[in-house]
């Protein structure tokens, strides 16, 4: 009886992932059409664009890019469910990826009055991972740290070596995560009550995808948190053994 129920749940889960995947693929083409049209207009190739018009066109372009990212996340989530997430491992420099993640989020951080700093101890060896996917995971964690700030935000990112592992941490002084939500925070589509109050929009996919990427890369992700005081998200990745000294 129980086995049949589980089988039914698996089938329903598979169908849902497949539907998500089909919808996401179908959304891509019209999004590319809108994105490309806006890019051509903004570039001025079709004639002069007034600064005020450009400002609105850029907003539209940013929103389309947000939708493209959401579609990518939905597809990644469906691939994770179907155990089809492909990782292309290569020597990856975490220091560089963290710096890029900070750069990518700098405008957002300034807009939300958040100070972001980065510290690392000595030389950080390369890890063997899918550079683009780890970048996505780091971005998701840093984005959350900035997004769920209260008043004046402070985000501190650290990298350190411990044995054969590189440990990443991202500490914020944001809203924190209550104990009752701790177990669900990495679940697909899950969003905490406070998080929804603060930022109503959000897919609840960022941490789900980040965990899958880190774990599939041989690492582990976890967090500590005090409600009202902030959270620290950690992950570790194993050091790449062959080319340890090539930085």
């Amino acid at each position: 009886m129980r086995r049949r129920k589980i089988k039914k749940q698996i089938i329903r889960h598979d169908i849902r992932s497949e539907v998500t995947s089909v919808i996401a693929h179908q959304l891509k083409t019209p999004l590319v059409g809108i994105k490309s049209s806006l890019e051509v207009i903004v570039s001025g190739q079709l004639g002069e664009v007034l600064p005020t018009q450009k400002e609105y066109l850029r907003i539209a372009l940013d929103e389309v890019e947000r939708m493209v990212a959401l579609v990518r996340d939905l597809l990644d989530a469906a691939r994770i469910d179907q155990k089809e997430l492909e990782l292309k491992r290569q020597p990856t420099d975490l220091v560089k990826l963290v710096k890029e993640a900070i750069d990518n989020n700098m405008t957002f951080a300034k807009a939300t009055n958040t100070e972001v700093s980065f510290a690392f101890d000595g030389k950080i060896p390369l890890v063997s991972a899918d550079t683009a996917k780890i970048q996505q995971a780091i971005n998701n964690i840093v984005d959350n740290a900035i997004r769920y700030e209260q008043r004046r935000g402070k985000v501190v990112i650290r990298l350190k070596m411990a044995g054969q592992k590189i440990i990443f941490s991202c500490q914020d002084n944001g809203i924190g995560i209550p104990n009752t939500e701790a177990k669900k925070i990495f679940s697909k589509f899950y969003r905490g009550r406070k998080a929804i109050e603060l930022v109503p929009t959000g897919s609840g996919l960022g941490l789900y995808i980040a965990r899958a990427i880190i774990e599939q890369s041989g690492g582990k992700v976890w967090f500590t948190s005090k409600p009202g005081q902030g959270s620290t998200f950690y992950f570790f990745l194993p050091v790449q053994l062959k080319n340890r000294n090539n930085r």
Partner: protein
Amino acid sequence: MEKQPKILVIEDDKFLNKLYSDQLRREGFEVSMAISGDEGLSKVLNENPDLVILDIVLPHKNGFDILSEMKLHAHTKNIPVLIVTNLGQDADIKTGLELGAVGYLVKTDFSITKLGEEVRKYLVMKQKKFSHNEAAD
């Protein structure tokens, strides 16, 4: 006046086909368009384009089939093919490159304003390869 390179755009979404073709025309290329796999292959064989922009998911004949057939004909096997698709999985990229595509762009990840630059890059590479082969002969 110097003859402009001719680019064949094989893309089944008519809006995207128009966007890519208009962009290339604005950048001075001659452009031919096809909206199905059959039409695309027929134009490759008959029009002798300098470069082909090829989507993968196409009606009648998919992009990988077109690429494979192009490699069977002496007059089309050296035409550079730039795949422009929404299939961004590594396995798809690997298949495309193994079948002989010179480049692979994922539609959501690149800006259309860079399309002309990409095309010119591969045309220059083709020219260099051609000159190198001639010198070797």
